[in-house]
């Protein structure tokens, strides 16, 4: 998809205030850059494919957008106007804006203003009752879904005049945008200068909450849209995963309860297959059958191990949070380890390689680990080509 880059790159935060960028050179990962600007733990990283920018947010309420200039990464501060830690970040599908969820019970939508040459943020206030743990953009670049520790999942329409064109929005949203544009035009002619500024800024970005889902009774994490944007999936801390179909016209929700420990993050591999990762240290596969009913299929890592001998010597370690994407589709050999891949909770999962129709065949997971001497977290790549029974769900 991208230019002629052969080696994939990975960016992650090893549980401190830095971001490490590794490159795959001859079958081994080499550290090529360290981005050092934040004061506290970096809680979210996202790498945009087309514009080649990394956005990082941290517990110190700041966010930086890094762009590469002549083999150095240069940060640009983004004024988020947050008064609590930022918890998660994601570029929108068109990569012209990104959203940040925070512990201040708000979500910031940031976009680039060409005239002033800086990143502006608009804040969604008063909608969430607690910290926003995870956010996900719909493929249409307008809808944003959020999960929070108050157990609710909310979907917002974040149309920004001047940034989003009318072609990108769906039917109801374009009317909304048009109406607002008309009102602002009239008001500019009639009202006094001071009031005009106030009202225009409000109509430029008026958040509309489309839906609030109250399915879970405990904290919710890891929200994702399916590749077509038809289905929403998120995990609750009560060991449940929720699937919501047909967001617009008539939403229908399913919840799948499982016996094991809760999940932290989910990933859609195709329309009908979802990977969940969490406190079980083992990725779980959920699949939908022809009727659209989701159920738990199996664990990915079936190999059992006798763990006693190994644990004795492992006492210290840090956990690496992995965000980041490969820059091209390469034939990277998979590295799923022979014994149980993760020793401790898996915190996130990201896709590594996508086929033409946006199904993901390889992905990486990262989590806490207890790795002797090496201070990086375990990053494991999983390749689904070898799991024949799962291939049929990928075509769906």
């Amino acid at each position, binding site marked *: 998809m991208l230019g002629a880059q052969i080696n994939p790159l990975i960016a992650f935060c090893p549980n401190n205030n830095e971001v490490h960028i590794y490159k795959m050179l001859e079958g081994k990962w080499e550290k090529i850059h360290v981005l050092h600007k934040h004061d506290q733990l970096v809680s979210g990283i996202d790498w945009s494919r087309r514009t080649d920018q990394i956005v990082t947010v941290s517990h110190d309420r700041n966010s930086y957008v890094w762009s590469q200039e002549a083999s150095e990464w240069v940060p640009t501060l983004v004024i988020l106007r947050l008064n*609590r830690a930022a*918890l998660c970040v994601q570029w929108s599908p068109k990569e012209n804006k990104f959203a940040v969820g925070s*512990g201040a019970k708000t979500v910031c939508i940031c976009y680039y203003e060409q005239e002033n040459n800086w990143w502006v943020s608009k804040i969604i206030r008063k909608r969430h009752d*607690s910290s926003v743990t995870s956010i996900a953009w719909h493929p249409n670049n307008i809808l944003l879904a959020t999960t929070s*520790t108050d157990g609710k999942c909310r979907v917002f329409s974040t149309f920004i005049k001047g940034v989003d064109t009318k072609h990108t929005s769906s039917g109801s949203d374009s009317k909304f945008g048009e109406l607002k544009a008309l009102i602002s035009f009239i008001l500019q002619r009639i009202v006094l200068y001071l009031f005009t500024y106030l009202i225009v800024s409000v109509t430029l970005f008026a958040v509309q909450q489309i839906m609030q889902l109250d399915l879970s009774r405990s904290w919710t994490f890891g929200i994702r849209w399916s590749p077509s944007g038809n289905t929403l999936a998120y995990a609750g801390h009560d060991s449940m995963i929720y699937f919501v179909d047909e967001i617009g016209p008539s939403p229908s929700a399913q919840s799948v309860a499982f016996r094991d*420990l809760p999940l932290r993050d989910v990933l859609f591999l195709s329309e009908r297959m979802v990977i969940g990762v969490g406190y079980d240290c083992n990725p779980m596969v959920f699949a939908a059958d022809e009727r659209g009913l989701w159920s738990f299929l199996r664990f990915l890592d079936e190999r059992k191990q006798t763990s006693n001998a190994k644990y004795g010597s492992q*006492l210290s370690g840090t956990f690496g949070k992995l965000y980041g994407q490969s820059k091209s589709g390469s034939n990277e050999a998979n590295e799923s380890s022979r014994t149980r891949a993760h020793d*401790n909770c898996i*915190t996130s999962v990201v896709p590594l390689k996508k086929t033409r129709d946006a199904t993901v065949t390889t992905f990486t997971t990262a989590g806490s680990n*207890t790795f002797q001497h090496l201070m990086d977290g375990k990053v494991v790549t999983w390749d689904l080509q070898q799991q024949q029974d799962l291939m049929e769900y990928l075509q769906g």
Partner: protein
Amino acid sequence: MANSLRLYLTCIRNTLDAALCLQNFPCQEVERHNKPEVELKTSPELLLNPVVYGPLVLICRNEAEKCLIETSINSLCISLKVKQSDELENILTKKFLRFLSMRAEAFQVLRRKPVQSFHTFLMVVGYSTVYYTQGYDISFLITNYHCEDMQKQKLIEFIVQFMEDIDKEISELKLSVNTRGRLVATEFLKQFI
């Protein structure tokens, strides 16, 4: 007797397995801070249940022995009440556990003061009223940082092992006190024979 101990410990082990799903969570009340929410108790939604004092799982073996587990998003507090059948055991337990609590830094997961229960009884003694606060004997505070540095299974093993060993220790101490008392008394009274 041993059977009920097994059941008690299995129940605690399973509860801890589910409760030790902790993650890093910055404080919602104070910026740039990261506090164990189970100690803070200011945001009820972070204490796993929308109940004012958070989810309290109380596992009782009998009236005298119980275990209180309070959970939150980034921390866990386990408070134990050890069986004390007579006055001597009372004193021994108090002294022994105080000894351990004073050295809480070496244990890392220990809390310096045991948790006091929320139930206070009003007792009328003579012409004065006395507030009687039920408490626990020892408390552990496990945060997400401990889970990152140490194995979760090892932490649970440690807690359960501690509970088993406490009973043995106290009875050993009691035995040695009685033995010493007997020896001393025998020696002392020999002079009167």
